[in-house]
C-alpha cells in the first residue's frame, strides 16, 4: 500500500529536514523522521498523527519518543527522497525500530502555556491564527455590533499597513509581488467566549519552515502593544511603523477610549515557539494616544512622486501628476501659492506629498488623498 505525501512543514532542520510534517491526499498529517542517510538518499519513517496530538507535540506537552513509541494508529510508512514527490510504502513493522528512536527528552518546544485551542487551530489551518477579543464595560461576553465592525475593520487596515512596513524593515526582496491581499487579509472562522473573541486565520504564503508572510504584520502589531519601560522606547517602536500603520493604530486607540473597550490580541503561527498575547485597555490606550498626539509626524505617511504635472489649478488648489516609473496618475490638493509657476507636461518634478487614507464604513473602499508638501524641478 502506498501513500503520496506532500511536505507541509519542517519541524527540525539540520543540514536537511530531520523531522517534518507531511499530508496525504485527504489532509491527514504524518510525522516523518529521518532515519539515516546513505549514498543514494535519506530514508524516513512516518506515521499518521491527529491534529490534537500534533498540537500537543508542538506545545511541548509530549516528547518525540512518546509520539513514536505510542502511535495513534500502528501503521508505518517508509520512503526515500530522491525526487520532489514522496511515495511512502507501508511497512510490516510492529513498532518503531529501537535503534532509530530518539533519546528521551526531545521536546519540540519549551512547554507553551496557553489554555485556548489556538495551537490546534494553527495545525488545522496550516497557517497563522489570530484571536481578537473585544469587551466593553458590560463585560458579559457580548459586544455591540458597531464596535465589533469598527474594531475589526481598523485592525484589518492596521495589519495591512504593518505588514507593508514589516517587509521594508526586513529588506524582503521582490516586495511588490508579495503585497497581495492573501498575505495580509484574515478570514473569520469561529468565535468563543472570553470577551467576544473572534478567531481569524490567514491564507498567506508560507515556506517549508512554517514562516507565514502575515507574520511580518503580526510581529509589528505585537511590537507596538508591548509594555515599554519608557516613553522613548515606545516612541522608537512607533517610529518603525511611522505613517499609515500608526495612523490606523491611533484610530483603534480612539475607538477604545471613546467606547471604553478592551482589546486582547493573541496569535500563533506554525514556526512560533510561543503563543503571543497582548492586552490593550483604556489605561494603556490613553498613554499611547497622548504620546501620538504630541508626535503628529508619526502618523504622517510621506510619498515621493517623480513625473510631469498634467494639471495644476491655482484657483481650486488641485493638481494631477503622471509618474515616470509606472505612468500612473495621482491627484491631490495644494495651496494656490504652492502651485503657482508649475509647468505642465514638459518639465519633470519630484513632488513630496503627504498621503492620507480615509477609511469609510466596513464595506466601502478606502479613499487616498495627497497633500502637497514641496516640489523640486528636475529637468525641462
Amino acid at each position, binding site marked *: 500500500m502506498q501513500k503520496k505525501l506532500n*511536505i507541509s512543514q*519542517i519541524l*527540525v*532542520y*539540520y*543540514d*536537511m*529536514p*530531520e523531522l*517534518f510534517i507531511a499530508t496525504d491526499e485527504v489532509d491527514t498529517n504524518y510525522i516523518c523522521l*529521518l*532515519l*539515516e*542517510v546513505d*549514498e543514494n*538518499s535519506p530514508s524516513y519513517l512516518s506515521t499518521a498523527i491527529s491534529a490534537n496530538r500534533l498540537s500537543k507535540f508542538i506545545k511541548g506537552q509530549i516528547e*518525540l519518543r512518546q509520539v513514536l513509541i505510542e502511535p495513534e494508529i500502528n501503521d508505518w510508512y517508509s520512503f526515500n*527522497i*530522491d*525526487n*520532489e514527490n*514522496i511515495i511512502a510504502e507501508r511497512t510490516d513493522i510492529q513498532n518503531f525500530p529501537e*535503534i*532509530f*528512536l*530518539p*533519546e*528521551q*527528552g*526531545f521536546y519540540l518546544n519549551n512547554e507553551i502555556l496557553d489554555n485556548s485551542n489556538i495551537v490546534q487551530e494553527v495545525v488545522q489551518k496550516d497557517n497563522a491564527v489570530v484571536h481578537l477579543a473585544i469587551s466593553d464595560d458590560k463585560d458579559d461576553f457580548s459586544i455591540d455590533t458597531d464596535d465589533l465592525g469598527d474594531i475589526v475593520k481598523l485592525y484589518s487596515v492596521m495589519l495591512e499597513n504593518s505588514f507593508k512596513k514589516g517587509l521594508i524593515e*526586513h*529588506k*524582503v*526582496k521582490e516586495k511588490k509581488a508579495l503585497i497581495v491581499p492573501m498575505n495580509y487579509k484574515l478570514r473569520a472562522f469561529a468565535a468563543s467566549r472570553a470577551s467576544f473573541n473572534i478567531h481569524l486565520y490567514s491564507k498567506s504564503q508560507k*515556506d*517549508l*519552515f512554517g514562516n507565514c508572510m502575515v507574520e511580518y504584520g503580526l510581529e509589528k502589531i505585537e511590537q507596538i502593544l508591548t509594555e515599554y519601560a519608557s516613553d522613548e522606547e515606545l516612541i522608537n517602536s512607533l517610529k518603525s511603523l511611522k505613517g499609515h500603520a500608526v495612523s490606523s493604530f491611533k484610530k483603534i486607540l480612539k475607538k477604545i477610549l471613546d467606547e471604553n473597550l478592551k482589546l486582547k490580541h493573541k496569535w500563533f503561527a506554525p*514556526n512560533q*515557539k510561543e503563543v503571543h498575547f497582548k492586552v490593550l485597555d483604556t489605561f494603556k490606550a490613553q498613554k499611547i494616544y497622548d504620546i501620538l498626539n504630541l508626535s503628529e509626524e508619526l502618523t504622517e505617511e510621506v510619498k515621493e512622486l517623480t513625473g510631469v504635472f498634467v494639471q495644476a489649478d491655482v484657483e481650486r488648489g488641485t493638481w494631477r501628476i503622471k509618474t515616470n516609473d509606472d505612468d500612473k496618475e495621482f491627484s491631490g490638493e495644494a495651496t494656490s501659492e504652492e502651485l503657482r509657476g508649475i509647468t505642465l507636461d514638459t518639465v519633470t518634478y519630484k513632488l513630496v506629498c503627504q498621503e492620507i487614507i480615509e477609511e469609510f464604513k466596513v464595506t466601502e473602499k478606502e479613499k487616498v488623498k495627497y497633500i502637497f508638501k514641496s516640489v523640486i524641478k528636475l529637468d525641462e
Partner: protein
Amino acid sequence: MTEWFEELPEQCPPKDAFSPSGQTFYRLVNGQTLTSDDFTSQQEEFSWKEFLKVDKCIIRAVSIFLDKADCEKMLKFQRHKHKNVYALTLLEKDGVVKQTFKPSHHSWWRTTNFELEVI
C-alpha cells in the same frame, strides 16, 4: 570577489544574509579530529538533484546554531548521538550567515577563506 566553498545557485546567498563579526556558533562534528567535511553541506556531500522542496540555496548551506542548547538538542537523534558539539567563531572572511529556522538556527554559506584553526 568572494570565493564560495561550494558552487551556489543564482541569487545565493540571499541578500539579507549578513557577514559575521566574531559571533560564536555551534555545530555537530564527527569525532575529535576536525576535517573540512564537517563543514560541508549535504548537497555538496551527496549531490542530490532535488531535495524535497527545500530552497536550493539553503540546502547548499551548513547548519549552525547560535544557542548551544539547541545544538545539543540534536544529539537526541540517533544519527547524531555520537557527534560532538563544537564552537566556532565566524569572521567576515568566513562567509555569510542567515537565520533560517527557529531563532537559533542559521544557515552558513562558507567561503574558501574559512580555516579550521579558528575553532
